[in-house]
């Protein structure tokens, strides 16, 4: 399991952990019911505060990615991969909507937007 914390990023550290753990779970690197390090252990390894790791785990639990059992620790939740993909799709849709709104505000046509998307998609490859 790899987690890389950037101290200079504007993204709060707890959010960095949440995002990276989500990715690890979604791409299968962390499997269902696999035990996770305790919040104290993770804090120690990453040289960050306990509150930060606790917040990250709380967030992951709220979103259903992990479960915490008192006295036993935290585990990767049994995932419904369909549902996960659905969630991810929704996320992409939201982002696209934002882009469309931003485009409309400067009167970009659908063609222009599509062209931009094509170009960026190619560039990213």
């Amino acid at each position, binding site marked *: 399991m790899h987690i890389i914390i950037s101290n200079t990023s504007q993204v*709060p550290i707890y959010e960095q952990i949440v995002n990276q753990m989500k990715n690890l779970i979604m791409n299968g690197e962390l499997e269902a019911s696999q035990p996770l390090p305790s919040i*104290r*252990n993770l804090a*120690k390894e990453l040289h960050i*505060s306990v*509150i930060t790791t606790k917040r990250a785990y709380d967030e992951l639990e709220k979103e259903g990615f992990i479960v915490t059992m008192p006295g036993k620790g935290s585990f990767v939740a049994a995932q419904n991969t369909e549902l996960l993909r659905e969630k991810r799709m929704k996320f992409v849709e939201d982002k696209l909507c934002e882009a469309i709104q931003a485009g409309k505000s400067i009167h970009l046509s659908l063609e222009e937007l599509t062209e931009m998307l094509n170009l960026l998609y190619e560039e990213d490859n």
Partner: protein
Amino acid sequence: MEPILEVKHLHKNFKDFFLRDINFTLEKGFIMGFIGPNGSGKSTTIKLIMNLLRKDGGQIKLFGKDHITHEQEVKNRIGFVYEGNHFYDELTVTDMKRVIAPHYMNWDDPVFYKYVERFNLPHDKKIKDLSKGMRMKFSLAIALSHHAQLLIMDEPTSGLDPVIRYELLEIFSEFIQDENRSIFFSTHITTDLEKIADYITFIHDGKILFSQSKDDILDHYGLVKGKNELIDDDVKKMFVGIKQNRFGFEGLVINRTNAVKTFGDSVVIEKPTLEDIMVFYTRGNES
């Protein structure tokens, strides 16, 4: 849950300085950093907690018990490290340990020697021949060898090189792996705290300016940089402190989101460091 350390309405009067209404609480399982400029009252507060100075008012509870009526009991459960620890210079590491150990009910020799080995402390060297870093490690070995549940330290990292500081921070995180233990330590090296502290208590001029979780502080405060034209008397009120020079201003705001709303793209807004926060609070408005 009972806090491990609770300070309420603490007062102390000196001729030229006083602590006013000091309040803060530390729960089990966490690290609290105690920051403030020199002479702001950090060491005085720590001495009052340890009952090395007589308080003039207020209440201090350790493990839920009054720090004076239960002094002996609570001190057995505290590992105390302070600046310029007063050891006998002429004694060796082992001899000094022999002097100190009987004062603690739960002294654990094997634990002590485990730390001596880990820190590479020379058994037979005299205290006066130890380097500053070694002396600090010796103090820490002593503080960690009687099964303390609370470490109270006054400037443990000051004057130490980054390598040794890093090592100490590792030991601190290890210490709180047991969630019944806590650490309270003063420092002016705020980068150490940016890494491991859970809570920050900031004292200035004998008053507590804030005591809250480090993440809250760093997520909410903002460092705003922009052109001088944006600053007038009303705008100035938004800032905790502001510095201006010929080329622009730099100021600290408590609420970053509000600053974004007010200034939009006309300024650069960054996440401050604890050092920024300390400097701006201490200096206030200066042009």
